[in-house]
């Protein structure tokens, strides 16, 4: 009966027999690749986040009623009655109730309940759980269950009770009832909002000057504006310390205010987010249609009116997108508020403090989840807006060509000079401070600050590690990203799998680096995880960095792949050529400029990133960017500045190499582009 019911709607098509596709070898191989890379994203992203989320809901507590002790007499016979730890504690008040709450790593020595314990005593001790899941350690061995374990006194001091786990909102309750913690939400939102408004306004002016004026040296100004991308976000913090800190050159300009706090964070944030906003807004302004301006001029609209009715609405998606990108960057940034934030708490720094300072991983997870909310919100709005922006682009648009206007061009030039002074000034002060002997007392030049091996932070090895890590990230990341994008774009059918992949690929952009790093600790530092061996290696740093910067790389690759003719694969298959030959001979050569772009993006970000890797480096894998942080933390500010500038020069060098390589590649393999 049910079969007939099901068959009914098909009746009109019932003539031919249904066809089920037989997959060719290529289809299977492509799906295989896609699944492997999706699996990578699951392991490197989804699972760690899931573990972190579950941690944030876990509370740990020593359940004293679950343990029972028995103590022997000097001859070793157990005559006394067993007694629970709870009873002992009630009698002795050895552990106050608030100390029973602990973290997942909590350990409570059993000797706490035996004040007259001596490890030389001849008495023996017995311990057992009352329930099956009561757990305790003897040495490093874990015991559970209700069987008695007997130990001598010397061993008994190595008996540790382990906490039991509860699922619930207790951590969140604690978070929101601790003003010093939830105050950070407000701080972060306000700082991010102020920085966003300032940065977008400044960047709009800059982009407007670049696209709408005929001022000279546009290329140079553009280059200068992009420089902050090449340094870690905490470098402007160091520069501000030199300028406005306790011994700063321009301290007087603050009129008694301190740079350590909101003011410093906002100025630094404007510095490091400026290029991101500038790129987005410049693009938005550059695509505007000259015909609209001609029409407006024919209608005798004033310049002011044209600005508000044509320019601003035309760039509105760019402005909104830039605003959310900047907001996201500021609220998730860790390095800058760490260096210059002083006592002013921000969410990202709270995660660090909870985890590194207090070893309270669960609370770190809670702050992470709190930080995820605005980050995901900003990300979603940005994605939505970007889609609209693309849709408004028409192939028929005529690009706007600015006309020279002496007054406006001079104004534009003056403005750009001011912005360039701001950017170059902060960078210059870092370089200057790095080169002088002892700021501000002995300003003679020396290279002592480059003797990194004498400082905390891993020395020159950090620098070499960073280069190694950035190279590995650039190579491995580009391969993974591009192959993944190719498979998801070109695989036929398999719709569910493909949309799932796209979702996974978009996720990293919404996840702040600190959150990712913390999730990695939870996931990879668990000894039961078969991937535990990765922990503390260079590999995990590379995996983390590739994952952290996956989305932008993926979108770049997708854009390039979508521009390829959809039928290439069909043609190759009809000519009995496997897809990998097409991939090698056509796809990769045609997309080579994009592939190089992705790799330089990954390289530069791997050199400057602090947030995710700060939780993951080991003594053998210290990184330059983290060294800047640690040297600054230790008071070695000049060496920190020196290392930061090393990162700048390395990235600038990498960019130049990339440029030369791109040019060469373009000439050799892209000859077809030129008629």
């Amino acid at each position, binding site marked *: 009966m049910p079969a007939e019911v099901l068959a009914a709607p098909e009746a*009109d*098509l019932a*003539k*031919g*027999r*249904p*066809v*089920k*596709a*037989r*997959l*060719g*070898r*290529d*289809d299977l191989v492509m799906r295989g690749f896609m699944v492997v890379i999706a699996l990578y994203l699951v392991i490197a992203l989804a699972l760690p986040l899931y573990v972190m989320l579950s941690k944030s809901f876990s509370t740990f507590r020593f359940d004293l009623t679950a343990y029972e002790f028995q103590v022997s007499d000097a001859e070793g016979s157990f005559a006394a009655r067993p007694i629970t730890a709870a009873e002992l504690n009630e009698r002795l008040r050895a552990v106050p109730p608030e100390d029973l709450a602990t973290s997942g790593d909590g350990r409570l020595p059993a000797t706490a309940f035996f004040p007259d314990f001596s490890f030389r005593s001849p008495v023996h001790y017995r311990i057992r759980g009352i329930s099956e899941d009561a757990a305790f350690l003897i040495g490093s061995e874990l015991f559970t269950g209700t069987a008695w374990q007997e130990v001598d006194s010397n061993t008994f001091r190595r008996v540790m009770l382990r906490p039991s786990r509860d699922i619930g909102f207790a951590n969140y309750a604690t978070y929101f009832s601790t003003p010093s913690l939830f105050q950070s939400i407000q701080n972060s939102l306000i700082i991010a909002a102020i920085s966003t408004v300032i940065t977008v306004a400044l960047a709009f002016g800059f982009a407007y000057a670049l696209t709408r004026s005929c001022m000279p040296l546009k290329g140079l100004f553009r280059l200068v504006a992009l420089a902050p991308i090449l340094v870690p976000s905490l470098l402007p913090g160091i520069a501000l310390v030199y300028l406005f800190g306790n011994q700063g050159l321009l301290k007087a300009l603050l009129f008694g205010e301190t740079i350590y706090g909101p003011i410093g964070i906002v100025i630094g944030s404007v510095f490091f987010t400026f290029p991101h906003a500038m790129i987005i807004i410049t693009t938005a302004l550059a695509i505007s249609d000259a015909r609209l301006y001609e029409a407006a001029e024919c209608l005798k609209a004033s310049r002011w009116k044209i600005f508000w009715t044509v320019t601003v609405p035309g760039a509105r998606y760019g402005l909104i997108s830039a605003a959310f990108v900047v907001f996201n960057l500021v609220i998730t940034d860790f390095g800058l508020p760490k260096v210059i934030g002083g006592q002013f708490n921000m969410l990202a720094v709270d995660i660090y403090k909870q985890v590194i300072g207090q070893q309270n991983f669960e609370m770190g997870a809670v702050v992470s989840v709190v930080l995820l909310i605005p980050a995901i919100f900003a990300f979603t709005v940005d994605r939505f807006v970007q889609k609209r922006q693309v849709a408004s682009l028409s192939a028929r648009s005529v690009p706007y060509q600015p006309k020279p206007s002496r007054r406006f061009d001079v104004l534009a030039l003056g403005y750009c000079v001011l912005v360039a002074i701001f950017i170059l000034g902060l960078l210059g002060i870092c370089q200057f401070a790095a080169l002088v002997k002892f700021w501000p007392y002995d300003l003679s030049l020396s290279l002592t600050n480059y003797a990194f091996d004498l400082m905390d932070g891993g020395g020159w090895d950090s620098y070499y590690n960073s280069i190694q890590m950035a190279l590995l990230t650039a190579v491995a990341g580009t391969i993974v990203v591009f192959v993944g994008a190719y498979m998801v774009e070109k695989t036929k059918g398999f719709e569910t799998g493909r949309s799932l992949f796209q979702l996974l690929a978009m996720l990293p952009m919404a996840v702040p680096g600190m959150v990712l790093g913390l999730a990695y600790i939870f996931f990879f530092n668990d000894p039961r995880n078969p991937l535990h061996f990765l922990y503390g290696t260079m590999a995990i740093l590379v995996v983390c960095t590739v994952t952290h910067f996956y989305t932008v790389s993926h979108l770049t690759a997708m854009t390039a792949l979508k521009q390829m*003719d959809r*039928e*290439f694969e*069909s*043609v*190759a*298959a*009809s*000519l*009995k*050529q*496997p897809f990998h*030959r097409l991939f090698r*001979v*056509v796809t990769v*050569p*045609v997309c080579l400029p994009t592939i190089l772009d992705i790799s330089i993006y990954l390289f530069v970000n791997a050199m400057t990133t602090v947030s995710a890797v700060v939780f993951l480096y080991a003594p053998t894998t210290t990184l330059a960017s983290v060294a800047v942080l640690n040297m600054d933390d230790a008071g070695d500010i000049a060496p920190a500045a020196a290392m930061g500038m090393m990162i700048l020069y390395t990235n600038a060098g990498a960019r130049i190499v990339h440029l030369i390589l791109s040019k060469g590649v373009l000439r050799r*393999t*892209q*000859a*077809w*582009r030129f*008629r």
Partner: protein
Amino acid sequence: MSSYLRIRDLSKKFGEFTALRDISLDVEDGEFVCFLGPSGCGKTTLLRAVAGLDLQTRGTIEQAGRDISALPIAERDFGIVFQSYALFPNLTIERNVAFGLENSGRSKAEIAARVSELLDLVGLADQRRKYPAQLSGGQQQRIALARAIATAPGLLLLDEPLSALDAKVRVHLRHQIKELQRKLGVTTVMVTHDQEEALSMADRIVVMNHGVIEQIGTPTEIYRQPKSLFVADFIGETNQLHATLAASGRFTLGNASLAGTTDGLAPGQPIVVTIRPEDIIPHAPGTAAAVSGGSLVEVIIGEMEFLGSFWRSRLSGTALGDEQLVADFSINAVRRLSLDEGAPLTIELPASRLIAFPAQNAPGDGARAG
């Protein structure tokens, strides 16, 4: 021996939308067949099913006796040319053509020889070291064609190959492709929405509409003996006159009784009668003897439009009731009969050219492939 390509009961659904419904079709070995129809009629979907690019929901496809219904593209035997050419931009013309030959066990010399042969065939031997972007659209499409036939496939599929080209180039390439196909004798299926292209190139045309085949036939059959109003209307130009069937072979239109082709229609039924503008024969006013046994009708010439090689005229008359006829008269006839706007005229409507269809003939309900 059965036909080279055998399609049986093929249907394709995209979700709830039925793109193809119970298509059955045979293509003979060496034949050039065109799928013709308005956009959205399913012609490209059918081609893509044959190629394995988009699998059909139901139905079987056999090629040379082999069931290929569910085979992946690479296991089928065809060459394909797309509207976009799909030439590999970073490979030279030479390497584009050689793409399917390399990696197939052929020696370098063998490949070079075959590439030269193919480039000669499409007349572009001197362009071999250029890149696709350096060639014109028509040249690029010829390279795409050379690439498609390089491996000597049993079936050549052309997906609107000429649609992206200029009108002049299109006509030129039309002949070239047809000639090439005849020379190679390769079974060819071409999708097009351009009837002129189909009429001039195909051995047989498959007219499609709304996911079904309206008619299969040679270009002349399709043009002269449309099986449905849709075909009559879609191919070429035609007059449509509302009439009533009086008896088999006769119908009334306005106050005229006309002889026509009325196969399979019942008397009394409202019908639509079609006649092509060029089938209307002009006679001097008052002529009483028909040349071809057709009906004679007295009309007045309305507007006349000069279209270069002929005059297009609008005819009306009491005999036609409210209907108007469009007729194409040769320059010769116009001069000979001194035709002019407002002048009276006797026209002859040949019985074999007046074809009747049921009036409520909604598109898609037309005669099935026969």
